[in-house]
């Protein structure tokens, strides 16, 4: 309960190299962090060159660390102990700080002091010794190694206070949210698409999810599952837009035309057409999919070729060369796996023919599509009837029309 930490230090990633855009990137992180810290009103954000400090002010360190680890653009986080800039305070704090970490039988360390406040009476070099020697006296396991230490205790001496830290916790990395544009993500309910979405977001894309459902052929739970997945992704974005597209009519129109082995191809093309329309409405410039080369019939190269021609937007496939096992590991890491493997069927597994084609013929596909009556009208209708919801990590469903859906789970019951 009595946390040894007073602050968190957030370090920025590769974008700091990018001269002109740096300001925009930092601003994006700041906005993101500020939104995530809303539930912790006492925590204060201090911006500095290339890094952010969060003054915890008594707010709990663990949950805050957990949410901040999800901020794209932040590569690592260090919990910081703060003390007065007086020699005795600094050495006492250092002993206390190191005493709380788990030391092995022999642990190598070094002190790296930096005197930012030049009026402090001891130089950085002197401070390394002045802090190091009481540590060596107090902890017999410690051994100095300036080249390759297991613990590097950093001490930053500023005018009013001194910061001590040594741990570095890996954070999400990548580019700050939305700094590389906006894209639509085809979100099924499977393992791959949430991972693809995460990968795209990590590279600075603002992602909006599009889900196709075929009630009553798919269950309400399948839709709930996708909402939950979007909710997990929104943990990395603060909030996420989810477009729920009614797909039953389109899907059933592809059955019974004697082209069963092409059903998946037709379906995927229709999905891309609808998504392109939604992208246009939302100002998005690409479509992200969870395709992984060769994984299923619709993800062979010939299939992707035929399917992809249904849209003019660039198709981004972050997982295209990733092995299934690695995708599963990533899904576990970002927290979507357990939800993805829930057993509710989505529309892609419906009406699946015994032997879907792995090598569709573009001309035949185009010809058949042209003979289907009312396909365009059906697509228009699906776009029109698409329901858009904004998903936040705490799953409060706000419909875009401003209508608040009453949740079954009343928080006051718990």
């Amino acid at each position, binding site marked *: 309960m009595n946390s040894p930490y007073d602050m968190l230090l957030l370090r920025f990633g590769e974008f700091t190299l990018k001269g002109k855009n740096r300001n925009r990137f930092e601003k994006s992180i700041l906005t993101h962090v500020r939104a995530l810290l809303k539930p912790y009103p006492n925590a204060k954000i201090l911006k500095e060159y290339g890094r952010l400090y969060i003054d915890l002010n008594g707010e709990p360190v663990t949950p805050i660390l957990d949410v901040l680890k999800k901020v794209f653009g932040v590569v690592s986080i260090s919990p910081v102990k703060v003390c007065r800039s007086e020699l005795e305070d600094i050495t006492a704090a250092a002993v206390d700080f190191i005493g709380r970490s788990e030391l092995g039988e022999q642990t190598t360390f070094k002190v790296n002091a930096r005197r930012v406040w030049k009026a402090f009476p001891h130089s950085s070099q002197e401070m390394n010794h002045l802090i190091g020697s009481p540590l060596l006296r107090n902890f017999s396991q410690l051994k100095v190694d300036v080249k390759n230490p297991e613990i590097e205790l950093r001490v930053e001496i500023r005018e009013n206070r001194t910061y001590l830290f040594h741990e570095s916790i890996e954070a999400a990395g990548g580019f700050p949210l939305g700094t590389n544009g906006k894209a639509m993500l085809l979100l099924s309910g499977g393992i791959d698409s949430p991972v693809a979405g995460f990968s795209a977001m990590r590279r600075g894309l603002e992602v909006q999810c599009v889900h196709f459902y075929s009630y009553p052929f798919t*269950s*309400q*739970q399948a839709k*709930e599952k996708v909402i939950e997945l979007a909710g997990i992704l929104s943990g990395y974005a603060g909030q996420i837009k989810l477009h729920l597209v009614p797909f039953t009519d389109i899907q059933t129109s592809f059955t019974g035309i004697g082209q069963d082995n092409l059903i998946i191809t037709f379906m995927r093309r229709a999905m891309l057409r609808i998504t392109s329309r939604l992208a246009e409405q939302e100002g998005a410039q690409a479509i992200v999919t969870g395709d992984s080369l060769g994984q299923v019939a619709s993800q062979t190269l010939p299939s992707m070729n035929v399917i992809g021609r249904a849209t003019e937007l660039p198709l981004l496939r972050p997982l295209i060369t990733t092995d299934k096992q690695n995708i599963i590991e990533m899904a576990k890491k970002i927290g979507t796996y357990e939800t993805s493997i829930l057993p509710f069927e989505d529309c892609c597994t419906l009406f699946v023919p015994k032997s879907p084609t792995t090598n569709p013929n573009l001309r035949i596909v185009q010809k058949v599509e042209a003979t289907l009556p009312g396909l365009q009208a059906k697509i228009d209708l699906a776009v029109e009837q698409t329901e858009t919801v904004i998903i936040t990590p705490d799953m409060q469903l706000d419909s875009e029309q401003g209508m608040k859906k009453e949740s*079954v*789970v009343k928080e*006051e*019951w*718990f």
Partner: protein
Amino acid sequence: MLYFDHAATTPPYPEVIQSMSEIMAQHYGNPSALHSAGEEAAKLLKRAREVCAGALSVSPKEIVFTSGATEGNNLAIKGTAMQYRSRGKHLVTTVTEHPSVYESFRQMEALGWEVTWIPVGPDGVVNAEQLAEQVRSDTVMVSVMHVNNETGAVQPLEKIGSLIKEKNHRVLFHVDGVQGFGKLPVELDNWKTDLYTLSSHKFKGPKGAGILYIRQGVTLFPLITGGSQENGHRGGTENVAAAAASAKAMRLASAAQADFYHKMNGLRNILFEKIAKMPEVMLNSTDSGAPHIVHFSYPGLKPEVLVHLMEQQGFLISTKSACSSKSSEPSRVLLKMGRDKDAASSGIRISLGWEHTENDVIQLCRALEQSADKLRSITARRR
């Protein structure tokens, strides 16, 4: 009437009653059903599980809803022994466990398992080193209660957890946490606990509901089969309203634990001070015990007499534990703490709760003193 039997059961929070009745009325669907009524019930159950997990800082997957601690303890002990019988047939527990633990081990003994019963000191506390010494390579589980239900004695769980795992890292550690949750800090991770039993009505939740924490990676042989509910650990339609109400009570109790400790500690000190001054009385609780239980022996008289006298004056107190208070046998727990038969047959338990004020406790002490005076004159005449 002032109720001083919180270790037996507690008056539920009004919010708990509200959750329970509203959910019973509005969401009667079976969580396993496909339709929307079932789906909504499943959502409530899921949320309840999340809240319970949050109160223990564990994962929702590790929470199993039970009908209470008796079931929880039975499932934890027999379920572990049977599931891991190929690892060995040796079990370790203490001599002062709750009957639901004690009897479960006795049954396993009858079925051919070997149980080592660890003694306690006069304060009711086990010696962690002595306990860990009994752990062998074929020991499957160690079960130790957090807080004793009769005396409030607190067991050194952190020490036990680390010593037994050092001796045999595969041994599973079960903690009967019934009397400790909401009263003392609970640190499952620190204690290296694999299984942890709770009963909702002991912390102002509903009766007929409890929680068993099963650490991820541990599997139990189910005792109640006939459905895949609760991850296969326990068949039967889930009691959604009770699960939600339990979650509510758990959240409230967990948030208020430090305050509870502080307040009860103050009240208990008053009790300790007054009771210590009564000449015939022998305290069985110590100030290192849980803050809400004060237990003493009043040798020479059947304890029921004092309980009845106190009730006449408006105070409900208890003899032994509620589960065995109707038998007139001496208390197993007190005997094992080294008390003689006379002292062990005359135990009185006062257990405190949120609604008590300092004044209530002073009134209680006064009534105790008066009752003792009255009894002293009667017993003196009889002698």
